[in-house]
């Protein structure tokens, strides 16, 4: 992982406060756990039926009956619980999930999220992503600021099929931390060595800048 991405993940980890129930989506969000102290009081949830997700185990220690929703061989911690898939999503839909961190293809200035389908190119199904995006009490996104071709992933409106409307509260990218407000994208922080102007130029919609230079991460 690049240094900028690693700092983005470390910054996102500070979003998790003691006592939360948190679901980390597949990909970059999963790596957030590497930045939490071993004794940090948090309950990680995974869709396939576990609260109290523990660290990923090396293959020789893996339990064939113990994976997370991304297929990684995880462990339990003291106090973990297993349950069926209906119970797992009852947790999600009924508001027991304080926070979810998800990846994104596109986020709109209204907080719409597109992260499950690129028509004609990528359509493996959304799995549990729709419910996480729509029902977690707080949804934040971890993503590179632009796609591989350099196109902005933060746009006025999403062009791809939506996962959920108006669900995203905050975005962590390799360039910035950005909040979604009634005014659209608002710059909160920049990555070291990145200026507010750089972020604005890489964003595909108006970006509200702070009056003073923003803090860096």
């Amino acid at each position, binding site marked *: 992982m690049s240094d900028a991405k690693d700092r983005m993940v470390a910054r996102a980890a500070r979003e998790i406060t003691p006592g939360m129930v948190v679901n980390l989506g597949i990909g970059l969000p999963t790596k957030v756990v590497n930045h939490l102290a071993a004794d940090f009081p948090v309950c990680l949830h995974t869709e396939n039926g576990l609260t109290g997700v523990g660290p990923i185990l090396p293959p020789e220690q893996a*339990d064939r009956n*113990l994976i997370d929703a991304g297929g990684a061989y995880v462990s339990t911690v003291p106090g973990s619980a297993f349950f069926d898939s209906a119970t797992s999503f009852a947790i999600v839909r009924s508001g027991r999930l304080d926070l979810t961190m998800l990846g994104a293809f596109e986020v709109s200035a209204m907080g719409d999220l597109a992260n499950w389908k690129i028509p004609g190119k990528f359509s493996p199904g*959304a799995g549990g992503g729709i419910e996480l995006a729509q029902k977690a009490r707080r949804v934040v996104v971890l993503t590179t600021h632009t796609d591989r071709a350099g196109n902005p992933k933060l746009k006025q409106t999403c062009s791809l099929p939506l996962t959920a409307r108006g669900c995203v509260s905050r975005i962590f990218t390799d360039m910035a931390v950005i909040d979604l407000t009634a005014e659209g994208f608002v710059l909160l922080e920049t990555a070291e060595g990145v200026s507010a102007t750089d972020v604005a130029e890489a964003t595909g919609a108006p970006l509200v800048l702070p009056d003073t230079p923003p803090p860096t991460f």
Partner: protein
Amino acid sequence: MNLPNKTCPIGDAINRIKDGDTIMVGGFGVPGTPMTLILALVAHGARNLTLIKNDANEPSMGIDHLLQSGQVSCLITTHLGLNSHAIGLMNAGQLEVEFNPQGILAERIRAGGAGIGGVLSDIGIGTELAKGKQVVEMAGESYLVEPALHADVALIHADRADAYGNLAYVGTAQNFNPLMAMAADCVIVEAERVLPLGGLAPNDVHTAGVFVDHVTELSELSEEYAVVRR
């Protein structure tokens, strides 16, 4: 008074499956996937099947064997991301795929098992996943009607069973198994251990044997049950 003994050879149980049946298959990834029952269904050869399963496993594992043998015409699922072969069949128009949000698939199956017609949910409302679904208004809110799912046969993997079909699961191998074990006309279970009646304490039962029709003990666990090395 004795509870009936439902243990039987795997072939006898699988022989109940007919062409055109709808089959629920437990599992989320490897854990809880009834790998041995799936291979028995491949050997049995029933065709034109509709499968209901969370995911399509990975190439050459689990239900991918049924996709490769051409026995499946429709797959009701949530995510195929780990099976490029399944995605290829879908894109080529050789496999009809119906995607559900994962928890909605679970609730539709639960409704089927609970003997009710379906559930109301706002999941996916305002997105293309709502397309074609009936909308109802209740207490000022809009909900999608999600019809119950019921199957002819469910293939279930349990850690332990007793001879009556009481079941216990371990770890994340529980997933869809307890839901599907309630939602089919014929429920066939493979268990890693089959205990005599009384061998599974009533408090340890996750699925009551009353839902189960056939129980078969796995004599060995094939390589497919093992930790996947990627």
